[in-house]
């Protein structure tokens, strides 16, 4: 049997591997996630488990030396146990809360919105136009008055 595992063998196979399957940089996060799932590995679980291992190592540093290496601390923060999938859920929840808060503020500042008795005022922009004839303004006024009547009628129905 020949002498196994020279670096030369390994480098040759690494080069072959890169030509066939690409270098590390060619795998992006999306593809990696797909590859893991195709093999039955849940990326979220894996990330969480790795994060937990790093956190445990950080804890042991803290207990032994009272401090944690900076890069390890950062890695632990990046791999927070909640994981990116939960972080996005939390982000969605925050956005939803903000939207609801804005709506409530608008309602509070305008109580008529709740009673449905909003007074609508038309700001007829066409009135400032100089190139409209008297006839055009007359037609537009008719349209405006018609709209007002319809809205008032709708309010009356409700």
């Amino acid at each position: 049997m020949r002498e196994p595992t020279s670096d030369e063998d390994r480098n040759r196979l690494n080069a072959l591997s890169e030509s066939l399957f690409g270098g590390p940089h060619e795998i992006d996060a999306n593809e990696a996630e797909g590859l893991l799932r195709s093999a039955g590995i849940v990326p979220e679980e894996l990330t969480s488990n790795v994060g937990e291992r790093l956190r445990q190592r950080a804890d042991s540093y803290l207990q032994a030396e009272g401090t944690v290496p900076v890069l390890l601390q950062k890695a632990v923060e990046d791999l927070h146990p909640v994981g990116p999938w939960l972080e996005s859920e939390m982000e969605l929840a925050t956005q939803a809360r903000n939207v609801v808060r804005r709506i409530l503020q608008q309602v509070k500042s305008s109580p008529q919105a709740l009673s449905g008795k909003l007074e609508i005022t038309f700001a007829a922009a066409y009135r400032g136009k100089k190139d409209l004839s008297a006839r055009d303004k007359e037609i537009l006024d008719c349209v405006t008055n018609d709209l007002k009547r319809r809205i008032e009628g709708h309010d009356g129905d409700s």
Partner: protein
Amino acid sequence: MTVRLAGYGLRVFSEYRLGGSDATVSGVGLSVEDFVSEVLLEFAEGRLAHEASRGELFSLLATALRNDIVDALRKAAHAREESRSALPRDGTSEGQPPGLDELPARTSDFSQLMDAERYRQQVQAAFVDEPELAEVVNTVLDHGFSKPQEIAEALGISTTDYQNRKKRLRRRLIEYRLVEVRDERADL
């Protein structure tokens, strides 16, 4: 970063005939997750230094990951080799079929794993049903091309198409190993 590393690690596992979610390097019992954790710790603890001038961090970690996996395969093979030679065969078993510890494990002989001809055979077997992918494999293995441009030219396709085929090769390799492992388990 973690998911990318794990995806790359899974691919390396598949190249060395390890497949499935519970695959470990036989003898050392390390999974893709173990290797990813270790390489991240190596970096976070300063055992693996990154110099920006020497490329992106991910490439450094992925290369370290690959080397760790290959080293583990080597250690496991040597350990098995030693344990086999330390256990002389019972005289009464001469001429009988070999015991389980004497059977070659999937990754037992590291020199075979690192043998280019064996690697070639394993890779070709994985793509025998995929003509387009087999074409890439044969072109690379037969001509020893390494530059994307020359491989694409030899295939008569654009470099973009070649990149896409490489992507399919990665996915197909992992799927092939998965099926291979399932079939082997079913046969047991």
